């Protein structure tokens, strides 16, 4: 082989190698990949607007009932702490539960409120296709009257999920599609109605509204989202008292507004989708934002803020969000907020749906399914370090997404299948007293409890029962 042939071969090999290198560099190994872009699911344009005449339907069934002395007038009770202050002695061993009455409900998770012998619950009637506030006699379950409005909605993990607010004069409800209805408590007559989603161009939360409306004195406090963040309405007349601007376009969550007094100011604390906010409740700046932080921002927030006397505020949410403890500070009338700790659910006290209870300087809550080794356990923590459990209920005592509250120095916990557990509240250990099944074949017993005069109202997704816990 002569030099010329060798040169030709070398050059040919070089050319081939060069071509291969160019091909290798130019070839995109991801050329066959499909890019996942928004819109591939062909999402619809949202629910069609409905012409809703709030409060149009009324039926009276009875007028006489047994008047009682006690109330559970709203979400988390009279003091917003989910602790009954009643002196009525309750059973700690239930044995066979004494079910005084029960009633079938539309599928949902709305809870009852109780006012002096009458129980109120916002239900969805699937046959009549209407939202209706139902009033029952607490003593015997006799239905007194209903007031509601026609509305077409579909099942979406239940259709009802809010608790009415009751005062001596008024009843305030908020329906699944953000329809607010204010009634006269004594006869159920309509005071006024408000279509929040329509009037404020706000987004109806996933799985429908979870915000329990608030009556503070004679003022209705409602989070709207959209064109305003929060509004105050005169219960008597329906006139707007103030509107909080919403420059951040924060959205309504499933959380509820909690009144809180700190640093000499009364405020409404709320966790919208987008942040955490305190709105002045009184004074010349009522309705103005006193403080806010975008640090707490999660796509779904169901639990409400737990505000503690020293300015700590505990927030938690499900779907992997975890929890955050913030410290509110006041200096010469100015408020500031500092994040003390933030963590994922497996690292400390967290909750998906229910709001934690603050009792004797400790927080109590049931961990979500993604709570690591503590999943579904009842946990007690010191707010100074919510990542370090003081105690847990242990692997043999796990619960679900159901409610829990305290009354007569007892902690009542409802499991998803309507098994009621009674424990002794303690800051040192879990002490179980009794456990009994209340509703057979129950599912998704998630609605908060209501208790008055020893009558405990609870429900699963389709049935509400009244249990006599009187000793």
């Amino acid at each position, binding site marked *: 082989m002569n030099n010329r042939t060798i040169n030709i071969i070398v050059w040919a090999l070089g050319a081939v190698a060069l071509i291969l290198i160019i091909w290798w560099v130019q070839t995109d190994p991801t050329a066959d990949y*499909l*890019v*996942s*872009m*928004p*819109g*591939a*699911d*062909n*999402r*619809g344009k*949202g*629910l069609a607007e409905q012409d809703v005449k709030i409060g149009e339907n009324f039926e009276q069934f009875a007028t006489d009932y047994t008047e009682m002395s006690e109330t559970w007038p709203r979400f988390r009770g009279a003091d917003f702490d989910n602790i009954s202050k009643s002196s009525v002695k309750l059973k700690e061993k239930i044995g066979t539960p004494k079910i005084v009455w029960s009633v079938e409900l539309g599928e949902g998770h709305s809870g009852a409120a109780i006012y002096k012998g009458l129980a109120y619950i916002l239900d969805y009637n699937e046959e009549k296709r209407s939202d209706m506030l139902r009033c029952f006699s607490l003593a015997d379950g006799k239905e007194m009257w209903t007031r509601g409005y026609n509305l077409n909605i*579909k099942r*979406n*993990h239940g259709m009802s999920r809010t608790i009415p607010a009751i005062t001596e004069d008024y009843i305030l409800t908020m329906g699944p599609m953000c329809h607010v209805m204010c009634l006269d408590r004594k006869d159920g007559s309509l005071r006024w109605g408000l279509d929040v989603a329509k009037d404020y161009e706000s987004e109806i939360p*996933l*799985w429908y509204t979870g915000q329990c409306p608030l009556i503070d004195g004679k003022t209705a406090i409602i989070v709207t989202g959209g064109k305003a963040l929060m509004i105050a309405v005169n219960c008597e007349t329906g006139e707007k008292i103030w509107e909080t601007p919403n420059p951040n376009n924060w959205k309504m969550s499933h959380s509820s507004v909690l009144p809180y007094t700190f640093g000499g100011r009364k405020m409404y604390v709320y966790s919208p989708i987008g942040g955490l906010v305190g709105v002045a409740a009184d004074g010349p700046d009522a309705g103005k934002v006193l403080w806010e932080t975008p640090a707490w921002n*999660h*796509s*779904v927030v169901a639990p409400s803020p737990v505000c503690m006397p020293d300015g700590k505020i505990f927030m938690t949410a*499900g*779907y*992997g*969000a975890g929890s955050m403890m913030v410290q509110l500070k006041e200096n010469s009338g100015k408020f500031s907020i500092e994040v003390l700790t933030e963590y994922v659910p497996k690292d400390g006290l967290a909750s*998906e749906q229910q709001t934690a209870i603050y009792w004797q300087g400790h927080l109590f809550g049931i961990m*979500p*399914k*993604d709570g690591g080794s503590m999943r579904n356990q009842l946990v007690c923590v010191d707010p100074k370090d919510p990542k370090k459990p003081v105690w847990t209920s242990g692997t043999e005592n796990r619960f679900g997404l159901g409610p829990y509250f305290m009354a007569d120095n007892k902690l009542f916990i409802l499991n998803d299948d309507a098994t009621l557990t009674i424990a002794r509240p303690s800051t040192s250990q879990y002490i179980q007293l009794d456990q009994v099944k209340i509703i057979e074949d129950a599912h998704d017993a998630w609605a908060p409890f209501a208790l008055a005069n020893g009558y405990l109202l609870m429900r699963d997704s389709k049935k509400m029962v009244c249990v006599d816990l009187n000793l």
Partner: protein
Amino acid sequence: MENNKTQNRRKFIQNGVRLSLLLSLGTVTAAALRKVTTDDYVWQIDPFECTQCGRCATDCVMKPSAVKCVHAFALCGYCDLCGGYLKPDSINRDTAAENQLCPTAAIERRFIEEPYFEYHINEDLCIGCAKCVKGCTSFGNGSMHLQIIHDICVNCNECSIARVCPSNAIKRVKASEAYLVKGDFSRKPKA
């Protein structure tokens, strides 16, 4: 005489072919019956025991794994916010890659009607990582779950994922009941 001979030979061949076909059919039928009736065992995942550790994706001898996500539609909530499809705290509830939990985009999300969405698993893309199962179990109805797919599984005598499964969720089941699909069976109470 010659004609009879030809006919006999043809008949002989025809009968032979018929007999062969009959024997083949019989053999296939017997084999199929045997497969159905005999209690051979295959590996399967009990979805109620599975803790979604992710080892099915990494430890199966098949690449990608013979373990795939299956979806029990009867249990699904058809949610817009699907814990099996969307990352926790996703920026938006849509099909953009940054919002999808599945690393291979194996779940197809389709709008049905307000407010429902349907979720289909693309078996060819699924690698059995269980991320969607973890999300669906933690935040939803648990309709998404893992199963060993038997037209992919080579049924090793010593299943490599069963060896490493931390919750002993992989067990031998009868070949005639090779799948433990949620909704089709419920957790049997422990004796």
